């Protein structure tokens, strides 16, 4: 009995101590979210006051479900996320393995590799647009010079070619971040494992497959979760590079939501979209954490 009441007392003290932090979280995270959900159940068009602000239940969500542009945007987002993250992981792993070696100027290389990551996304996107924009742009000149292209093309008027600068820019910008996360993971692997493997006659490929990759799994999963969530919320890069075009064929969900919410000022519908994006990213995070066993900040054995 005594023990339980002491626990109760401690629990009370604990709750009291975290109360300020919890109330801050409630104020800055839960309250706006709740408000958005509430707003999403209303018809609220800032531009059309004559419609009033009636409660419409799930009508906004039904409209989303029926809107082909939303489903297309979701598909574009998924496509962008999968392709760019695969490339980033592959190249990032290669870079991390290289940087993990001891060589002269390693510190400098590690710092230098981060430069693209340090450039604001909008600036980076403008640079890439500039390179791809006109028929006389650097991308066209280069590709014609090495005979990959017969003649210059207009990159942003065809869906397949419009994705190229978008994905390249994202890979260019984010791979260093991925490489650094993986490098941190690599540094945690005990070198004696490799020595033992070498004594047993294992070659480099075998070592990579059976030592490096399994032990790097936690770092890879953490990277994946970060990058997937980022990828799903991609906005600025595409806003600047293609604006979602041609037509709406590279439009991600975040851009579509921005459009509904801030261009058309459809607060109800836009809020419903925000809630849907939130639910999707939250679901993805859950899948990673529960399904794949990513431990954020937990110790690995």
């Amino acid at each position: 009995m005594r023990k339980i009441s002491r626990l109760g007392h401690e629990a009370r003290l604990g709750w009291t101590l975290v109360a300020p932090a919890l109330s801050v979280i409630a104020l800055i995270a839960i309250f706006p979210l709740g408000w958005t959900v509430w707003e999403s159940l209303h018809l609220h068009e800032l531009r059309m006051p004559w419609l009033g602000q009636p409660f419409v239940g799930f009508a906004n969500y039904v409209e989303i479900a029926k809107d082909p542009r939303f489903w297309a945007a979701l598909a574009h987002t998924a496509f962008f996320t999968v392709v760019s993250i695969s490339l980033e992981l592959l190249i990032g792993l290669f870079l991390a393995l290289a940087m993990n070696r001891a060589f002269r100027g390693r510190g400098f290389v590690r710092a230098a590799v981060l430069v693209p990551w340090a450039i604001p996304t909008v600036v980076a996107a403008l640079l890439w647009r500039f390179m791809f924009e006109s028929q006389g742009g650097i991308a066209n000149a280069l590709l014609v010079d090495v005979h990959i292209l017969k003649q210059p093309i207009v990159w942003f008027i065809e869906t397949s070619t419009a994705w190229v600068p978008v994905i390249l820019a994202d890979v260019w910008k984010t791979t260093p971040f991925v490489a650094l996360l993986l490098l941190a993971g690599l540094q945690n692997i005990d070198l004696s494992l490799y020595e033992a493997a070498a004594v047993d006659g294992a070659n480099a490929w075998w070592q990579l497959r059976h030592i490096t990759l399994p032990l790097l799994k936690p770092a890879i999963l953490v990277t994946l979760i970060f990058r997937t969530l980022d990828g799903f919320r991609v906005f600025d890069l595409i806003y600047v590079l293609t604006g979602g075009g041609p037509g709406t064929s590279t439009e991600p969900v975040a851009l579509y939501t921005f459009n509904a919410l801030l261009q058309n000022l459809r607060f109800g519908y836009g809020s419903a979209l925000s809630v849907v994006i939130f639910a999707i990213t939250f679901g993805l995070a859950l899948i990673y954490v529960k399904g794949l066993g990513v431990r954020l900040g937990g110790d690995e054995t």
Partner: protein
Amino acid sequence: MRVVHAALLSGVVVLGACARTRKSNETVLTFSGSALGAEGTLVAKQLQRFMQLHPGIRVELQRTPDDANQRHQLYVQWLNARVGNPDILQLDVVWTPEFAAAGWVLPLTRFKPASGEFFPATITANTWAGQLYALPWFADVGLLYRRTDFVPNEPRSLGELVADAKQAMARPGGPRFGIVWQGARYEGLITGFVEYLGAFGGRILDDSGRVVVNQPQAVRALQFMRDELYSSHIAPLDVLTWHEEEARFAFQNGTAVFMRNWPYPVAAMSDKSQSSVAGKFAVSPIPASGEAGGHSTAALGGAQLAINAYSESPDAAYRLIEYLTAPEQMLERGQAVGQYPTRPALYSDSRLRAALAIPLDDARRAIESATPRPVTPIYTELSEILQIELHRALVRQAEPQEALNSAAKKIDALIERTGMRRLMGAEQKAASPTGSSMAGHTE
């Protein structure tokens, strides 16, 4: 002690500032506009003169963004919060019906404005439910620029335009591009489309507000734009990513025979130090298709002045609008920043001739052929739908008929969703006293 003193003092200053409105009989108006460059100087000068004429009114300039989208967003937020400042709103030509239907701007009827003195199209664009809600401040109009060294005479039809462009491109040393326009997926694409649409005799909405953008004339107009890109090859595919400035660069550097643009580039392109076409270009109205029912059409742009419905001093606000849209001020605006007056009478004034850098007759003809984009409160969303579908057709993701059918379907759904049918019904009743003149109107 000194700190307390200073705090008290600043408090008094703040209080003083708040009380200014009520002090004596002075009325304070706020005017929304740009404080930058020549435009800022001009506005400041005109406001100053207005205050000298009306000692009881003080006008303060409230800086608002020059970017139309940003200004629009700001206005909508303020007006939703029922803020009475700025008293005078500067509206883009396509916003007036939206603001009027929302009850955010006051009808000007009771001030009896002399609307007959302005170009009719600029008045139509500012009329909603039979009432005028804003006065046109200056007009922007789509023009056809051409290189006079390759094409001495203006083309009389779109067919002639294509032929002229091809001929000039084929000449040794001729420009690389036949025609350049604004084809990126944004509002500029609509203005260009509206011009071709008129040239073929089509419309987006008819007089009773029905969607007619998928009818044969519209399909032919869109097909013509596509043919410029893929069939006659007079327009480079690049235009599908271009805005006004990219088109201007191309024309100014001498790489294009024709260009569709607003009047603003005239000054820069006439400057020998930065333009390789100075003295070698002219403007004219965009020609008609030559098909029956088609007419030469220019998209209408420009700024309007309206009274904030929550303004505390609407009468003083109207006096300022009247002053700024008076002939003298418009003339001065034309001279200072090259913007076109909205009063036809001024186009026979020799003082304007020097200011506009193009023959006044050409300018007037272009404005007389101007058509407002659909005058409807839901214009912005209608435009977004159309931008996407037009772009899809132009990049060949869809056939013109298919894209326009899809646009028509979505615009219909938009009209339904926003209760526009009821609203437009009300407008027709208000517009025609009998309320039944439209009843028998079927096609």
